[in-house]
């Protein structure tokens, strides 16, 4: 293993980590404010990617330019889901919430298959053939754009949550829903806002993923959603810094560990492929973190 390979893996891990972070933070916001585990969050990623694809095909514009409109449309869908789906059953038991979100998975997957068929769809980035030399490695321009956009999202989100009245109200709702309501915060509005924001971030994750070369299909959200759940559990439920750290760790570990295992197996004379073990790595890390620190890296007791 040479150093340039390790640097390349770090950069690829960073890119993969950005997608996980965007998805996981949205999931975390919804869970933090509403205490609802939305299993259909991966389907928001998928619908977001298709919305961008659809706007891109209709307009012919640069896909990065149609992304804000896609996020706006998906925010409206998020509001719709919260208002008509989750709000009526809030407080009626966790099982109802779980089955509602599981039902939404099938609903959205079949809706996408109906609207866009099950064929894979792609979005052609205008920068797909541009490469940025970064020392010994060649970084595709799209990866760099994704890393920059994710960073901007995270900074904007932190500023929103820390510096604005609405953001502080969301955090208050997340910390203690009843106390927040007693203090005059409209917690139901915070629920809607968290769902809208979660949908926006999932749209960003799905769209950026497809723009950078991934194919969109109605079932593309399943694996990233599982990874996003792993990220928020590793980072600590409700913790945004935890999701960032865990997302990056997972992205890099997934890229690094199979190569490292193959290298080590080679030293002891075994020629084996560990690529198919990638998803196992996420859950192996999850188990280790849960054993050492059951609340996750940045999680707090009782969350």
């Amino acid at each position, binding site marked *: 293993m040479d150093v340039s390979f390790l640097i390349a893996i770090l950069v690829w891990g960073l890119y993969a980590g950005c997608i996980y972070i965007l998805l996981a933070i949205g999931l975390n916001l919804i869970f933090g404010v509403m205490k609802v585990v939305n299993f259909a969050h991966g389907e928001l990623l998928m619908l977001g990617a298709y919305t961008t694809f659809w706007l891109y095909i209709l307009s012919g514009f640069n896909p990065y330019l149609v992304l804000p409109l896609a996020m706006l449309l998906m925010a409206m869908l998020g509001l719709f889901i919260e208002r008509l789906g989750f709000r009526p059953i809030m407080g009626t038991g966790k099982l109802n919430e779980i089955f509602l979100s599981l039902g939404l998975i099938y609903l959205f997957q079949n809706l996408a298959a109906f609207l866009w068929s099950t*064929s894979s769809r792609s979005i052609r980035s205008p920068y797909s053939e541009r490469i940025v030399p970064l020392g010994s490695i060649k970084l595709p321009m799209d990866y760099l754009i994704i890393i920059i956009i994710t960073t901007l999202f995270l900074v904007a989100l932190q500023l929103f949550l820390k510096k604005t009245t609405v953001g502080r109200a969301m955090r208050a709702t997340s910390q203690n829903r009843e106390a927040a309501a007693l203090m005059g915060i409209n917690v139901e509005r915070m629920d809607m806002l968290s769902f809208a924001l979660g949908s926006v971030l999932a749209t960003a994750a799905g769209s950026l993923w497809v723009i950078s070369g991934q194919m969109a299909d109605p079932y593309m959200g399943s694996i990233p959603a599982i990874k996003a759940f792993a990220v928020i559990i590793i980072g600590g439920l409700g913790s945004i810094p935890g999701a960032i750290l865990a997302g990056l760790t997972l992205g890099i570990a997934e*890229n690094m560990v199979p190569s490292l295992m193959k290298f080590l197996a080679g030293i002891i004379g075994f020629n084996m492929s560990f690529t198919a073990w990638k998803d196992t790595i996420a859950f192996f890390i999850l188990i280790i973190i849960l054993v050492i620190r059951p609340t996750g890296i940045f999680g707090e007791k009782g969350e």
Partner: protein
Amino acid sequence: MKYAILVTVLVVSLVLAGCVQQPEEPAGEIKIGIVASLTGGASTTGLDMWQSAVLAADEINAKGGVKVGDEHMKVKLIQGDDETSREGGVKAVTKLITEDKVDLLIGGFSSGITYADSVVAAEHKVPFIITGASSPVITHRTDIDTSYFFHHCPTTDDYGESTTLFVDEIVKPAIYARFNFSEDRPLRMAVLYQDSAYGVGVYEGIKKTIEKYNLNMEIVAVEKFKMSETDFRSVLTTIKASKPDVLYPAAFLNEQTLIVAQGRRDVGLNTIYLSVECNDDPDYYTGVERWGEYSIQESRFGPYAIPSGPIRSAVEKFKHDFEAKWGAPPSMMGASTYEGVYIAAKAIENAGTLDKEQIRASLAELEMPQMVEAMKEGKITFSPDYRESKFELYMQQLLWDDAVGETRPKIVWPESVKETDFVLPSWYEPGSS
């Protein structure tokens, strides 16, 4: 009084019914069950199979149906949706056989699903023309009676053999001539396969071919990945380190697109990428962009290239008729299912009866001209051992087309159907000397 009126109406009706001409007894019909994934993940392919079957049945019926003994019978197709799942497949085949009482089955897309649902067909001794599943296991298995199964679809063994022979015959000489390699040097092939029956089957097909033809080839890297994987950069870097002359991924469309794009763009693995026929799809050409240029694809029926030779006009007519009827071009699985209906019709006509055992015997002895896919020796017939029809698979190279802003395939092998010569790109980098 009320009863008297009712009785009168009834009597008058019966008398009138006796006076008017009775409609003819409905002509007998051949009931064919089409097993396809009409819902779920493979529904696009499944719908295409169904639509192709309908086109074939309409054509046959428009010409008066199928002559069965002294009677002309219409073909009636019945849908069997396997829901892209094993359980769905078993349910669909059971319903087709026990409720719809079909005379014969056609279709079956996924090897996994067909492996499960064909058990029902074997139990009820219903002939099954399999036009989608690619695993040879379907007719090679010994745990059930497979004598009613007829495989009209190339197997993973066929994919591996055609592609490996093409590499040996065409790609290897081109590389060796440019880089002045000695003939003694084995060609260095890397294999990256999906960890499934399909991927393992292709890998086994490559190994069998190298051994069977005693080819001077060495498999320098073997890596596998989980189905629907999206990140191949690390594994491609490992493969690059093994210095291959060619890379043969056994992957589905969404995986193959990423393997080629990530390999060329991110990893700088500037080699010849080979590919299995399922990637000969418009979405692949759009998705792979310029990174797919000069890569090689094994195929038998595709959206753009049409093999030269005797079937050219038949392919053009099928594509035209399909598009006119359904508004979109047919796929590879559609082509073999279209042929499947004609195979069934011919076998029943030859048998002269709808007796399933007689139809099975007729299929076993069938010999009919090739239709829209090139066949070995130009005819459709099933091998006596495992009842497999043998396709004339061809290899196509993807070349950039400025007019459409995408690559388009050109057939480069075999000689009998080729459109142009194979090109070794200027950016190509061989393995170690």
